[in-house]
Protein backbone atom coordinates (compact mmCIF):
# COMPACT_ATOMS: atom_id res chain seq x y z
CA UNK A 1 0.00 0.00 0.00
CA UNK A 2 2.84 2.31 0.75
CA UNK A 3 4.04 1.71 -2.79
CA UNK A 4 0.82 3.22 -4.17
CA UNK A 5 1.31 6.70 -5.59
CA UNK A 6 -1.30 9.24 -4.52
CA UNK A 7 -2.03 11.87 -7.15
CA UNK A 8 -3.34 15.45 -7.20
CA UNK A 9 -6.51 16.63 -5.49
CA UNK A 10 -9.36 15.81 -7.90
CA UNK A 11 -12.42 16.31 -5.70
CA UNK A 12 -12.72 19.36 -3.50
CA UNK A 13 -15.73 19.80 -1.24
CA UNK A 14 -16.13 23.38 0.02
CA UNK A 15 -18.29 24.57 2.94
CA UNK A 16 -21.24 22.28 2.27
CA UNK A 17 -24.31 22.97 4.40
CA UNK A 18 -27.53 20.97 4.17
CA UNK A 19 -30.70 21.02 6.22
CA UNK A 20 -34.15 19.41 6.03
CA UNK A 21 -36.82 21.83 7.17
CA UNK A 22 -35.22 23.14 10.33
CA UNK A 23 -32.91 20.21 10.94
CA UNK A 24 -29.24 20.82 10.17
CA UNK A 25 -27.77 17.69 8.61
CA UNK A 26 -24.43 19.16 7.52
CA UNK A 27 -22.90 22.46 8.45
CA UNK A 28 -19.99 23.96 6.58
CA UNK A 29 -18.15 20.76 5.66
CA UNK A 30 -14.98 20.98 3.58
CA UNK A 31 -12.53 18.28 2.61
CA UNK A 32 -10.71 17.09 -0.49
CA UNK A 33 -9.91 13.79 -2.15
CA UNK A 34 -6.69 12.95 -4.01
CA UNK A 35 -6.51 10.77 -7.07
CA UNK A 36 -6.04 7.06 -6.35
CA UNK A 37 -6.39 7.47 -2.61
CA UNK A 38 -8.82 5.73 -0.30
CA UNK A 39 -10.59 8.43 1.66
CA UNK A 40 -12.74 7.41 4.62
CA UNK A 41 -15.54 9.40 6.22
CA UNK A 42 -16.30 8.23 9.74
CA UNK A 43 -18.52 9.38 12.51
CA UNK A 44 -21.28 8.18 14.86
CA UNK A 45 -24.81 7.49 13.64
CA UNK A 46 -26.54 10.59 12.37
CA UNK A 47 -23.25 12.39 11.92
CA UNK A 48 -24.30 13.16 8.36
CA UNK A 49 -21.99 10.78 6.53
CA UNK A 50 -24.58 9.46 4.08
CA UNK A 51 -25.97 12.97 3.61
CA UNK A 52 -22.45 14.01 2.59
CA UNK A 53 -22.34 11.38 -0.13
CA UNK A 54 -25.89 12.23 -1.18
CA UNK A 55 -24.78 15.82 -1.68
CA UNK A 56 -21.83 14.73 -3.77
CA UNK A 57 -23.89 12.67 -6.14
CA UNK A 58 -26.84 14.93 -6.33
CA UNK A 59 -29.48 13.02 -4.39
CA UNK A 60 -29.73 15.97 -1.99
CA UNK A 61 -29.20 19.60 -2.95
CA UNK A 62 -27.06 21.42 -0.36
CA UNK A 63 -28.22 24.91 0.57
CA UNK A 64 -24.68 26.28 0.63
CA UNK A 65 -21.22 25.33 -0.53
CA UNK A 66 -19.76 24.03 -3.74
CA UNK A 67 -18.10 20.92 -5.05
CA UNK A 68 -15.11 21.09 -7.39
CA UNK A 69 -14.18 18.10 -9.52
CA UNK A 70 -11.16 18.24 -11.81
CA UNK A 71 -11.37 22.03 -12.04
CA UNK A 72 -15.15 22.17 -12.69
CA UNK A 73 -17.12 23.78 -9.87
CA UNK A 74 -20.73 22.87 -9.06
CA UNK A 75 -22.94 24.48 -6.46
CA UNK A 76 -25.53 21.78 -7.02
CA UNK A 77 -24.93 18.41 -8.59
CA UNK A 78 -27.48 16.49 -10.59
CA UNK A 79 -27.24 12.74 -10.44
CA UNK A 80 -27.00 12.23 -14.17
CA UNK A 81 -24.18 14.79 -14.49
CA UNK A 82 -22.30 13.26 -11.59
CA UNK A 83 -22.56 9.83 -13.11
CA UNK A 84 -21.25 11.18 -16.41
CA UNK A 85 -18.32 12.80 -14.57
CA UNK A 86 -17.36 9.29 -13.52
CA UNK A 87 -18.75 8.91 -10.00
CA UNK A 88 -20.28 5.63 -8.92
CA UNK A 89 -21.69 4.73 -5.57
CA UNK A 90 -22.98 1.94 -3.39
CA UNK A 91 -25.69 2.25 -0.78
CA UNK A 92 -25.85 1.69 2.94
CA UNK A 93 -29.33 0.18 2.96
CA UNK A 94 -29.21 -1.95 -0.16
CA UNK A 95 -30.62 -0.18 -3.18
CA UNK A 96 -30.41 -2.94 -5.75
CA UNK A 97 -33.09 -3.49 -8.38
CA UNK A 98 -34.81 -6.35 -6.63
CA UNK A 99 -36.91 -7.41 -9.59
CA UNK A 100 -33.92 -8.02 -11.85
CA UNK A 101 -31.30 -10.75 -11.85
CA UNK A 102 -27.61 -10.19 -11.15
CA UNK A 103 -26.62 -9.72 -14.77
CA UNK A 104 -29.31 -7.12 -15.40
CA UNK A 105 -28.37 -5.24 -12.25
CA UNK A 106 -24.79 -5.05 -13.44
CA UNK A 107 -25.82 -4.29 -17.02
CA UNK A 108 -27.89 -1.39 -15.74
CA UNK A 109 -24.57 0.05 -14.54
CA UNK A 110 -23.53 0.18 -18.20
CA UNK A 111 -26.60 2.16 -19.15
CA UNK A 112 -24.77 5.45 -19.54
CA UNK A 113 -22.48 3.85 -22.08
CA UNK A 114 -25.24 2.28 -24.20
CA UNK A 115 -26.21 4.44 -27.12
CA UNK A 116 -28.64 2.58 -29.41
CA UNK A 117 -32.05 4.21 -29.71
CA UNK A 118 -35.47 2.85 -28.91
CA UNK A 119 -36.22 1.60 -32.40
CA UNK A 120 -32.94 -0.24 -32.79
CA UNK A 121 -33.60 -1.89 -29.45
CA UNK A 122 -37.14 -2.81 -30.42
CA UNK A 123 -35.82 -4.60 -33.51
CA UNK A 124 -32.87 -5.99 -31.54
CA UNK A 125 -30.79 -6.38 -34.68
CA UNK A 126 -27.29 -5.34 -35.61
CA UNK A 127 -26.21 -2.43 -33.48
CA UNK A 128 -28.45 -3.15 -30.50
CA UNK A 129 -27.48 -6.80 -30.32
CA UNK A 130 -23.79 -6.03 -30.76
CA UNK A 131 -23.95 -3.40 -28.04
CA UNK A 132 -25.66 -5.80 -25.64
CA UNK A 133 -22.96 -8.37 -26.24
CA UNK A 134 -20.01 -6.01 -25.77
CA UNK A 135 -21.31 -4.73 -22.51
CA UNK A 136 -22.33 -8.20 -21.43
CA UNK A 137 -18.69 -9.20 -21.94
CA UNK A 138 -17.50 -6.37 -19.72
CA UNK A 139 -20.06 -7.27 -17.06
CA UNK A 140 -18.84 -10.85 -17.13
CA UNK A 141 -15.36 -9.62 -16.14
CA UNK A 142 -16.83 -7.93 -13.11
CA UNK A 143 -18.79 -11.07 -12.29
CA UNK A 144 -15.58 -13.04 -12.37
CA UNK A 145 -13.76 -10.38 -10.36
CA UNK A 146 -16.41 -10.49 -7.63
CA UNK A 147 -16.67 -14.28 -7.80
CA UNK A 148 -20.45 -14.38 -8.27
CA UNK A 149 -20.55 -16.46 -11.46
CA UNK A 150 -22.91 -18.94 -9.87
CA UNK A 151 -25.66 -16.35 -9.35
CA UNK A 152 -25.75 -14.73 -12.80
CA UNK A 153 -29.44 -15.37 -13.40
CA UNK A 154 -30.69 -15.21 -9.83
CA UNK A 155 -33.02 -12.34 -8.95
CA UNK A 156 -30.97 -10.28 -6.51
CA UNK A 157 -33.85 -10.24 -4.06
CA UNK A 158 -33.18 -13.92 -3.37
CA UNK A 159 -29.42 -13.54 -2.71
CA UNK A 160 -28.00 -13.49 0.84
CA UNK A 161 -27.09 -10.07 2.22
CA UNK A 162 -23.36 -10.40 1.75
CA UNK A 163 -23.72 -11.25 -1.91
CA UNK A 164 -26.18 -8.44 -2.44
CA UNK A 165 -23.53 -6.06 -1.14
CA UNK A 166 -21.16 -7.48 -3.73
CA UNK A 167 -23.68 -7.02 -6.52
CA UNK A 168 -24.15 -3.46 -5.33
CA UNK A 169 -20.40 -2.95 -5.65
CA UNK A 170 -20.47 -4.71 -9.00
CA UNK A 171 -23.13 -2.37 -10.33
CA UNK A 172 -20.96 0.58 -9.30
CA UNK A 173 -17.85 -0.95 -10.92
CA UNK A 174 -19.80 -1.61 -14.12
CA UNK A 175 -19.84 2.17 -14.53
CA UNK A 176 -16.01 2.16 -14.77
CA UNK A 177 -15.93 5.04 -12.26
CA UNK A 178 -13.02 7.38 -11.58
CA UNK A 179 -14.35 7.96 -8.09
CA UNK A 180 -16.16 5.27 -6.16
CA UNK A 181 -18.35 6.29 -3.23
CA UNK A 182 -18.95 3.40 -0.83
CA UNK A 183 -21.60 3.83 1.86
CA UNK A 184 -20.78 1.35 4.65
CA UNK A 185 -19.80 -1.47 2.29
CA UNK A 186 -19.20 -3.82 5.23
CA UNK A 187 -22.14 -2.96 7.45
CA UNK A 188 -23.83 -6.02 8.85
CA UNK A 189 -21.26 -8.49 7.47
CA UNK A 190 -19.54 -11.31 9.26
CA UNK A 191 -15.75 -11.45 9.47
CA UNK A 192 -15.15 -13.49 6.31
CA UNK A 193 -17.48 -11.33 4.28
CA UNK A 194 -15.74 -8.24 5.59
CA UNK A 195 -12.36 -9.64 4.61
CA UNK A 196 -13.62 -10.44 1.12
CA UNK A 197 -15.07 -6.98 0.77
CA UNK A 198 -11.82 -5.34 1.97
CA UNK A 199 -9.94 -7.36 -0.58
CA UNK A 200 -12.29 -6.23 -3.36
CA UNK A 201 -12.02 -2.59 -2.31
CA UNK A 202 -8.23 -2.69 -2.21
CA UNK A 203 -8.03 -4.59 -5.51
CA UNK A 204 -10.32 -2.09 -7.19
CA UNK A 205 -8.18 0.68 -5.80
CA UNK A 206 -4.85 -0.54 -7.08
CA UNK A 207 -5.89 -2.67 -10.08
CA UNK A 208 -8.12 -0.05 -11.69
CA UNK A 209 -6.53 2.86 -9.80
CA UNK A 210 -9.98 3.98 -8.79
CA UNK A 211 -10.24 6.75 -6.23
CA UNK A 212 -12.42 5.60 -3.33
CA UNK A 213 -14.42 7.56 -0.78
CA UNK A 214 -15.91 5.25 1.80
CA UNK A 215 -18.06 5.55 4.86
CA UNK A 216 -17.40 2.91 7.44
CA UNK A 217 -18.31 2.12 11.01
CA UNK A 218 -15.70 -0.51 11.64
CA UNK A 219 -12.73 1.48 12.91
CA UNK A 220 -10.36 -1.45 12.45
CA UNK A 221 -11.12 -1.68 8.77
CA UNK A 222 -11.01 2.07 8.25
CA UNK A 223 -7.67 2.51 9.88
CA UNK A 224 -6.23 -0.41 7.94
CA UNK A 225 -7.26 0.42 4.44
CA UNK A 226 -7.75 4.16 4.17
CA UNK A 227 -5.06 6.70 3.37
CA UNK A 228 -6.84 9.69 4.93
CA UNK A 229 -9.87 10.02 7.17
CA UNK A 230 -12.51 12.72 7.70
CA UNK A 231 -14.39 12.61 10.99
CA UNK A 232 -17.90 14.04 11.22
CA UNK A 233 -20.01 14.53 14.31
CA UNK A 234 -23.50 16.01 14.35
CA UNK A 235 -22.97 17.39 10.88
CA UNK A 236 -19.71 19.12 11.74
CA UNK A 237 -16.20 18.16 10.73
CA UNK A 238 -14.13 17.48 13.84
CA UNK A 239 -11.09 15.83 12.36
CA UNK A 240 -9.20 15.23 9.12
CA UNK A 241 -5.92 13.50 8.38
CA UNK A 242 -4.09 10.18 8.22
CA UNK A 243 -5.45 7.39 10.39
CA UNK A 244 -2.70 8.01 12.93
CA UNK A 245 -3.37 11.73 13.16
CA UNK A 246 -7.07 11.08 13.56
CA UNK A 247 -6.44 8.43 16.19
CA UNK A 248 -4.57 10.94 18.27
CA UNK A 249 -7.07 13.80 17.73
CA UNK A 250 -8.60 14.73 21.09
CA UNK A 251 -12.04 15.78 19.77
CA UNK A 252 -12.28 12.60 17.78
CA UNK A 253 -11.44 10.48 20.77
CA UNK A 254 -14.02 12.33 22.81
CA UNK A 255 -16.73 12.27 20.19
CA UNK A 256 -16.21 8.92 18.66
CA UNK A 257 -13.57 6.45 19.67
CA UNK A 258 -14.53 6.89 23.29
CA UNK A 259 -18.10 5.91 22.64
CA UNK A 260 -18.89 2.32 21.89
CA UNK A 261 -20.30 1.11 18.58
Amino acid at each position, binding site marked *: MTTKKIGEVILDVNNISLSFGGVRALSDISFNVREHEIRAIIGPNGAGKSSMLNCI*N*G*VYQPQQGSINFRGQTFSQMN*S*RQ*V*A*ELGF*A*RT*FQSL*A*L*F*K*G*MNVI*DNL*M*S*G*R*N*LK*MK*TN*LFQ*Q*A*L*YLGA*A*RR*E*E*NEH*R*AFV*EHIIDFLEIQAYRKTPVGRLPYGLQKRVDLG*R*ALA*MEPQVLLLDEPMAGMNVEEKQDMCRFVLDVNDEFGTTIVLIEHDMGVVMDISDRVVVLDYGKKIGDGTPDEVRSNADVIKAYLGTTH
Partner: protein
Amino acid sequence: MLYRENGQFKTSYSADQQIFPILQDRIAMGLLLAVAFVAVPLLGSEYMFRAIFIPFLILSLAALGLNILVGYCGQISLGTGAFMAVGAYAAYNFQVRIEGMPVLLSMLLGGVCATAVGVVFGIPSLRIKGLYLAVATLAAQFFVDWAFLRIKWFTNDSASGSVSVANVNVFGLAIETPVAKYLFCLSFLIVFGLLAKNLVRSHIGREWMAIRDMDVAAAVIGIRPVHAKLSAFAVSSFIVGVAGALWGFVYLGSWEPAAFSIDRSFQLLFMVIIGGLGSIMGSFFGAAFIVLLPILLDQLLPALGSLVGLDFDTAVVSHVVSMIFGALIVFFLIAEPHGLARLWAVAKEKLRLWPFPH
Protein backbone atom coordinates in the same frame (compact mmCIF):
# COMPACT_ATOMS: atom_id res chain seq x y z
CA MET B 1 -38.44 -36.19 -18.67
CA LEU B 2 -38.24 -34.52 -22.05
CA TYR B 3 -38.07 -31.10 -20.51
CA ARG B 4 -34.38 -30.78 -19.67
CA GLU B 5 -31.86 -28.08 -20.42
CA ASN B 6 -28.72 -30.08 -19.55
CA GLY B 7 -26.42 -30.61 -22.49
CA GLN B 8 -27.47 -27.27 -23.97
CA PHE B 9 -24.37 -25.12 -23.48
CA LYS B 10 -24.34 -21.51 -24.53
CA THR B 11 -21.26 -20.58 -26.51
CA SER B 12 -22.10 -16.92 -27.11
CA TYR B 13 -23.78 -14.16 -25.18
CA SER B 14 -26.42 -13.72 -27.88
CA ALA B 15 -27.29 -17.37 -27.49
CA ASP B 16 -27.56 -16.81 -23.76
CA GLN B 17 -29.74 -13.73 -24.26
CA GLN B 18 -32.32 -15.43 -26.46
CA ILE B 19 -35.98 -15.02 -25.56
CA PHE B 20 -36.32 -18.75 -25.12
CA PRO B 21 -32.90 -20.03 -24.08
CA ILE B 22 -34.10 -23.62 -23.70
CA LEU B 23 -34.51 -25.67 -26.84
CA GLN B 24 -37.73 -27.32 -25.71
CA ASP B 25 -39.29 -23.92 -25.14
CA ARG B 26 -38.41 -22.87 -28.66
CA ILE B 27 -39.99 -26.02 -30.02
CA ALA B 28 -43.09 -25.50 -27.89
CA MET B 29 -43.34 -21.90 -29.09
CA GLY B 30 -43.04 -23.04 -32.69
CA LEU B 31 -45.82 -25.56 -32.19
CA LEU B 32 -47.97 -22.97 -30.50
CA LEU B 33 -47.57 -20.61 -33.44
CA ALA B 34 -48.35 -23.41 -35.85
CA VAL B 35 -51.52 -24.16 -33.92
CA ALA B 36 -52.48 -20.50 -33.75
CA PHE B 37 -51.92 -19.85 -37.45
CA VAL B 38 -53.02 -23.16 -38.93
CA ALA B 39 -54.98 -25.42 -36.61
CA VAL B 40 -57.20 -22.78 -34.99
CA PRO B 41 -58.38 -21.23 -38.26
CA LEU B 42 -59.25 -24.69 -39.51
CA LEU B 43 -61.06 -25.87 -36.40
CA GLY B 44 -62.42 -22.79 -34.60
CA SER B 45 -66.12 -22.03 -34.89
CA GLU B 46 -67.32 -18.57 -35.89
CA TYR B 47 -68.48 -17.90 -32.34
CA MET B 48 -65.05 -18.74 -31.02
CA PHE B 49 -63.42 -16.25 -33.36
CA ARG B 50 -65.85 -13.38 -32.99
CA ALA B 51 -66.63 -13.70 -29.29
CA ILE B 52 -63.46 -15.15 -27.79
CA PHE B 53 -60.33 -15.15 -29.91
CA ILE B 54 -60.58 -11.69 -31.45
CA PRO B 55 -61.40 -9.85 -28.21
CA PHE B 56 -58.79 -11.96 -26.47
CA LEU B 57 -56.09 -11.03 -28.96
CA ILE B 58 -56.92 -7.33 -28.97
CA LEU B 59 -57.18 -7.08 -25.21
CA SER B 60 -53.93 -9.01 -24.81
CA LEU B 61 -52.31 -6.36 -26.96
CA ALA B 62 -53.74 -3.62 -24.77
CA ALA B 63 -52.73 -5.48 -21.62
CA LEU B 64 -49.24 -5.88 -23.05
CA GLY B 65 -49.06 -2.14 -23.49
CA LEU B 66 -50.33 -1.47 -19.99
CA ASN B 67 -47.93 -4.02 -18.54
CA ILE B 68 -44.97 -2.08 -19.91
CA LEU B 69 -46.13 0.94 -17.97
CA VAL B 70 -47.36 -0.70 -14.77
CA GLY B 71 -45.43 -3.94 -14.67
CA TYR B 72 -42.08 -2.79 -16.01
CA CYS B 73 -41.90 0.89 -15.16
CA GLY B 74 -44.05 0.78 -12.01
CA GLN B 75 -46.23 3.73 -13.04
CA ILE B 76 -49.82 2.77 -12.30
CA SER B 77 -52.43 3.97 -14.78
CA LEU B 78 -56.22 3.94 -14.47
CA GLY B 79 -56.60 5.73 -17.80
CA THR B 80 -55.84 2.97 -20.26
CA GLY B 81 -59.33 3.10 -21.73
CA ALA B 82 -58.72 6.72 -22.64
CA PHE B 83 -55.58 5.89 -24.59
CA MET B 84 -57.41 3.12 -26.42
CA ALA B 85 -60.10 5.64 -27.28
CA VAL B 86 -57.55 8.10 -28.63
CA GLY B 87 -56.09 5.37 -30.80
CA ALA B 88 -59.49 4.34 -32.12
CA TYR B 89 -60.85 7.82 -32.84
CA ALA B 90 -57.60 9.10 -34.29
CA ALA B 91 -57.41 6.11 -36.63
CA TYR B 92 -61.05 6.72 -37.56
CA ASN B 93 -60.31 10.32 -38.46
CA PHE B 94 -57.31 9.44 -40.60
CA GLN B 95 -59.54 6.90 -42.29
CA VAL B 96 -62.50 9.14 -43.13
CA ARG B 97 -60.67 12.40 -43.73
CA ILE B 98 -57.84 11.23 -45.95
CA GLU B 99 -59.01 9.59 -49.18
CA GLY B 100 -57.47 6.20 -49.87
CA MET B 101 -55.67 6.02 -46.53
CA PRO B 102 -54.47 2.45 -45.96
CA VAL B 103 -56.14 1.08 -42.84
CA LEU B 104 -52.91 -0.31 -41.46
CA LEU B 105 -51.34 3.12 -41.63
CA SER B 106 -54.27 4.88 -39.97
CA MET B 107 -54.15 2.36 -37.16
CA LEU B 108 -50.44 2.95 -36.58
CA LEU B 109 -51.00 6.70 -36.80
CA GLY B 110 -53.78 6.23 -34.27
CA GLY B 111 -51.16 4.65 -32.07
CA VAL B 112 -48.90 7.65 -32.63
CA CYS B 113 -51.63 10.05 -31.50
CA ALA B 114 -52.21 7.90 -28.43
CA THR B 115 -48.48 8.17 -27.78
CA ALA B 116 -48.66 11.94 -27.84
CA VAL B 117 -51.61 12.03 -25.45
CA GLY B 118 -49.99 9.39 -23.28
CA VAL B 119 -46.83 11.42 -22.93
CA VAL B 120 -48.78 14.56 -22.06
CA PHE B 121 -50.67 12.78 -19.30
CA GLY B 122 -47.44 11.05 -18.31
CA ILE B 123 -45.76 14.33 -17.45
CA PRO B 124 -47.32 14.46 -13.95
CA SER B 125 -45.53 11.18 -13.21
CA LEU B 126 -42.33 13.21 -13.02
CA ARG B 127 -43.66 15.10 -10.03
CA ILE B 128 -46.10 12.72 -8.40
CA LYS B 129 -45.84 9.08 -7.50
CA GLY B 130 -47.87 5.94 -6.93
CA LEU B 131 -51.36 6.54 -5.66
CA TYR B 132 -51.38 10.18 -6.61
CA LEU B 133 -50.41 9.28 -10.13
CA ALA B 134 -53.19 6.69 -10.29
CA VAL B 135 -55.67 9.47 -9.69
CA ALA B 136 -53.92 11.75 -12.16
CA THR B 137 -54.42 9.17 -14.89
CA LEU B 138 -58.13 9.13 -14.10
CA ALA B 139 -58.13 12.75 -15.22
CA ALA B 140 -57.05 11.48 -18.64
CA GLN B 141 -59.86 8.95 -18.61
CA PHE B 142 -62.63 11.41 -17.87
CA PHE B 143 -61.28 14.19 -20.05
CA VAL B 144 -60.92 11.96 -23.09
CA ASP B 145 -64.36 10.42 -22.60
CA TRP B 146 -65.79 13.90 -22.52
CA ALA B 147 -63.80 15.19 -25.47
CA PHE B 148 -65.01 12.48 -27.82
CA LEU B 149 -68.60 13.01 -26.75
CA ARG B 150 -68.50 16.75 -26.99
CA ILE B 151 -66.13 17.77 -29.76
CA LYS B 152 -68.01 17.01 -32.95
CA TRP B 153 -64.92 17.23 -35.12
CA PHE B 154 -63.51 14.03 -33.66
CA THR B 155 -66.61 12.10 -34.67
CA ASN B 156 -66.79 13.64 -38.11
CA ASP B 157 -69.95 15.55 -37.04
CA SER B 158 -72.04 12.43 -36.67
CA ALA B 159 -75.27 13.47 -34.98
CA SER B 160 -75.18 10.85 -32.27
CA GLY B 161 -71.45 11.04 -31.64
CA SER B 162 -70.84 7.41 -32.42
CA VAL B 163 -68.79 6.44 -35.44
CA SER B 164 -68.46 3.46 -37.75
CA VAL B 165 -65.80 2.43 -40.23
CA ALA B 166 -66.09 1.07 -43.75
CA ASN B 167 -64.97 -2.42 -44.58
CA VAL B 168 -61.42 -2.86 -43.41
CA ASN B 169 -58.97 -4.22 -45.93
CA VAL B 170 -55.23 -4.48 -45.84
CA PHE B 171 -53.02 -4.77 -48.95
CA GLY B 172 -56.17 -5.45 -50.94
CA LEU B 173 -57.28 -8.33 -48.74
CA ALA B 174 -60.60 -7.67 -47.06
CA ILE B 175 -60.53 -8.24 -43.32
CA GLU B 176 -64.13 -9.40 -43.30
CA THR B 177 -64.42 -13.03 -42.32
CA PRO B 178 -63.86 -13.97 -38.68
CA VAL B 179 -60.79 -15.96 -39.64
CA ALA B 180 -59.29 -13.05 -41.53
CA LYS B 181 -59.90 -10.76 -38.56
CA TYR B 182 -58.44 -13.34 -36.23
CA LEU B 183 -55.26 -13.72 -38.27
CA PHE B 184 -54.99 -9.95 -38.64
CA CYS B 185 -55.13 -9.41 -34.88
CA LEU B 186 -52.90 -12.39 -34.23
CA SER B 187 -50.14 -11.04 -36.45
CA PHE B 188 -50.43 -7.66 -34.76
CA LEU B 189 -50.12 -9.28 -31.35
CA ILE B 190 -47.12 -11.39 -32.32
CA VAL B 191 -45.23 -8.52 -33.93
CA PHE B 192 -45.86 -6.18 -31.02
CA GLY B 193 -45.18 -8.92 -28.51
CA LEU B 194 -41.80 -9.48 -30.08
CA LEU B 195 -40.91 -5.81 -30.22
CA ALA B 196 -42.01 -5.34 -26.61
CA LYS B 197 -39.95 -8.33 -25.52
CA ASN B 198 -36.90 -6.88 -27.26
CA LEU B 199 -37.41 -3.56 -25.54
CA VAL B 200 -37.71 -5.02 -22.07
CA ARG B 201 -34.56 -7.09 -22.50
CA SER B 202 -32.48 -4.17 -23.77
CA HIS B 203 -31.17 -1.23 -21.80
CA ILE B 204 -34.35 0.82 -22.13
CA GLY B 205 -36.16 -2.06 -20.41
CA ARG B 206 -33.55 -2.08 -17.66
CA GLU B 207 -34.05 1.67 -17.24
CA TRP B 208 -37.78 1.11 -16.72
CA MET B 209 -37.27 -1.68 -14.21
CA ALA B 210 -34.59 0.30 -12.40
CA ILE B 211 -37.00 3.20 -11.98
CA ARG B 212 -39.65 0.76 -10.81
CA ASP B 213 -37.45 -1.01 -8.27
CA MET B 214 -35.45 1.86 -6.77
CA ASP B 215 -35.69 5.22 -8.44
CA VAL B 216 -33.01 6.96 -6.36
CA ALA B 217 -30.41 4.32 -7.12
CA ALA B 218 -31.45 4.47 -10.76
CA ALA B 219 -30.82 8.20 -10.83
CA VAL B 220 -27.41 7.69 -9.22
CA ILE B 221 -26.26 5.32 -11.94
CA GLY B 222 -27.21 7.98 -14.46
CA ILE B 223 -30.71 7.01 -15.52
CA ARG B 224 -32.86 10.05 -16.19
CA PRO B 225 -36.30 9.49 -14.61
CA VAL B 226 -37.82 11.85 -17.17
CA HIS B 227 -36.54 9.80 -20.05
CA ALA B 228 -37.39 6.45 -18.50
CA LYS B 229 -40.92 7.31 -17.39
CA LEU B 230 -41.94 9.22 -20.48
CA SER B 231 -40.53 6.58 -22.81
CA ALA B 232 -42.51 3.98 -20.87
CA PHE B 233 -45.65 6.11 -21.19
CA ALA B 234 -44.96 6.59 -24.90
CA VAL B 235 -44.35 2.94 -25.75
CA SER B 236 -47.22 1.81 -23.56
CA SER B 237 -49.72 4.27 -25.00
CA PHE B 238 -48.64 3.48 -28.53
CA ILE B 239 -49.40 -0.20 -28.12
CA VAL B 240 -52.59 0.54 -26.20
CA GLY B 241 -53.64 3.01 -28.88
CA VAL B 242 -53.15 0.48 -31.67
CA ALA B 243 -55.14 -2.01 -29.62
CA GLY B 244 -57.87 0.61 -29.33
CA ALA B 245 -57.90 1.08 -33.10
CA LEU B 246 -58.21 -2.68 -33.58
CA TRP B 247 -61.00 -2.82 -31.00
CA GLY B 248 -62.96 -0.21 -32.92
CA PHE B 249 -62.13 -1.23 -36.49
CA VAL B 250 -61.99 -5.00 -36.24
CA TYR B 251 -64.06 -6.02 -33.24
CA LEU B 252 -66.86 -3.45 -32.91
CA GLY B 253 -66.91 -1.86 -36.35
CA SER B 254 -68.94 0.96 -34.84
CA TRP B 255 -68.47 2.48 -31.44
CA GLU B 256 -69.06 5.28 -28.96
CA PRO B 257 -66.81 6.54 -26.15
CA ALA B 258 -68.59 4.20 -23.74
CA ALA B 259 -66.69 1.36 -25.43
CA PHE B 260 -63.55 2.75 -23.82
CA SER B 261 -64.98 3.70 -20.46
CA ILE B 262 -63.25 3.53 -17.10
CA ASP B 263 -64.49 -0.04 -16.72
CA ARG B 264 -62.23 -0.95 -19.62
CA SER B 265 -59.31 0.65 -17.80
CA PHE B 266 -59.98 -1.44 -14.71
CA GLN B 267 -60.52 -4.57 -16.77
CA LEU B 268 -57.11 -4.13 -18.37
CA LEU B 269 -55.47 -3.41 -15.05
CA PHE B 270 -56.92 -6.64 -13.69
CA MET B 271 -55.59 -8.53 -16.67
CA VAL B 272 -52.14 -7.25 -15.89
CA ILE B 273 -52.39 -8.04 -12.19
CA ILE B 274 -53.82 -11.50 -12.60
CA GLY B 275 -51.62 -12.29 -15.58
CA GLY B 276 -48.45 -11.09 -13.97
CA LEU B 277 -46.90 -7.67 -13.49
CA GLY B 278 -43.69 -7.29 -15.45
CA SER B 279 -44.21 -10.25 -17.72
CA ILE B 280 -45.05 -10.25 -21.42
CA MET B 281 -46.43 -13.77 -21.15
CA GLY B 282 -48.50 -12.65 -18.19
CA SER B 283 -50.37 -10.12 -20.27
CA PHE B 284 -51.63 -12.92 -22.49
CA PHE B 285 -52.54 -15.16 -19.58
CA GLY B 286 -54.37 -12.34 -17.88
CA ALA B 287 -56.31 -11.40 -20.99
CA ALA B 288 -57.31 -14.99 -21.63
CA PHE B 289 -58.42 -15.38 -18.05
CA ILE B 290 -60.51 -12.24 -17.89
CA VAL B 291 -62.06 -12.70 -21.32
CA LEU B 292 -62.98 -16.31 -20.68
CA LEU B 293 -64.04 -16.30 -17.04
CA PRO B 294 -67.28 -14.30 -17.33
CA ILE B 295 -68.32 -16.07 -20.52
CA LEU B 296 -67.64 -19.37 -18.85
CA LEU B 297 -69.52 -18.48 -15.69
CA ASP B 298 -72.37 -17.03 -17.73
CA GLN B 299 -72.98 -20.46 -19.15
CA LEU B 300 -71.81 -22.57 -16.25
CA LEU B 301 -73.69 -20.99 -13.34
CA PRO B 302 -77.23 -21.43 -14.70
CA ALA B 303 -76.32 -25.01 -15.52
CA LEU B 304 -75.01 -25.59 -12.00
CA GLY B 305 -78.00 -23.76 -10.60
CA SER B 306 -80.44 -25.99 -12.40
CA LEU B 307 -78.57 -29.01 -11.04
CA VAL B 308 -79.27 -27.94 -7.48
CA GLY B 309 -82.70 -26.82 -8.52
CA LEU B 310 -82.46 -23.03 -8.33
CA ASP B 311 -82.40 -20.90 -11.42
CA PHE B 312 -80.12 -17.90 -11.47
CA ASP B 313 -81.52 -15.06 -13.51
CA THR B 314 -79.01 -13.24 -15.65
CA ALA B 315 -78.69 -10.46 -13.10
CA VAL B 316 -77.56 -12.77 -10.32
CA VAL B 317 -75.08 -14.40 -12.65
CA SER B 318 -73.43 -11.13 -13.59
CA HIS B 319 -73.31 -10.06 -9.94
CA VAL B 320 -71.71 -13.35 -9.02
CA VAL B 321 -69.23 -12.85 -11.84
CA SER B 322 -68.18 -9.51 -10.43
CA MET B 323 -67.89 -11.08 -6.96
CA ILE B 324 -65.67 -13.83 -8.28
CA PHE B 325 -63.56 -11.25 -10.09
CA GLY B 326 -63.08 -9.26 -6.94
CA ALA B 327 -62.24 -12.34 -4.93
CA LEU B 328 -59.73 -13.51 -7.52
CA ILE B 329 -57.95 -10.17 -7.65
CA VAL B 330 -57.47 -10.31 -3.89
CA PHE B 331 -56.55 -13.97 -4.01
CA PHE B 332 -53.82 -13.38 -6.57
CA LEU B 333 -52.42 -10.36 -4.79
CA ILE B 334 -52.14 -12.44 -1.63
CA ALA B 335 -51.17 -15.86 -2.94
CA GLU B 336 -49.19 -14.98 -6.05
CA PRO B 337 -48.42 -11.30 -6.60
CA HIS B 338 -46.71 -12.19 -9.85
CA GLY B 339 -49.84 -13.74 -11.24
CA LEU B 340 -50.41 -16.56 -13.64
CA ALA B 341 -47.09 -15.97 -15.37
CA ARG B 342 -45.28 -16.84 -12.14
CA LEU B 343 -47.40 -19.95 -11.65
CA TRP B 344 -46.45 -20.93 -15.18
CA ALA B 345 -42.76 -20.39 -14.41
CA VAL B 346 -43.07 -22.39 -11.20
CA ALA B 347 -44.73 -25.22 -13.07
CA LYS B 348 -41.93 -25.22 -15.65
CA GLU B 349 -39.32 -25.14 -12.90
CA LYS B 350 -40.88 -28.20 -11.32
CA LEU B 351 -41.06 -29.95 -14.66
CA ARG B 352 -37.40 -29.21 -15.34
CA LEU B 353 -36.35 -30.80 -12.04
CA TRP B 354 -38.89 -33.57 -12.13
CA PRO B 355 -38.87 -36.13 -10.55
CA PHE B 356 -36.66 -34.45 -7.97
CA PRO B 357 -38.39 -31.87 -5.73
CA HIS B 358 -35.47 -29.39 -5.86
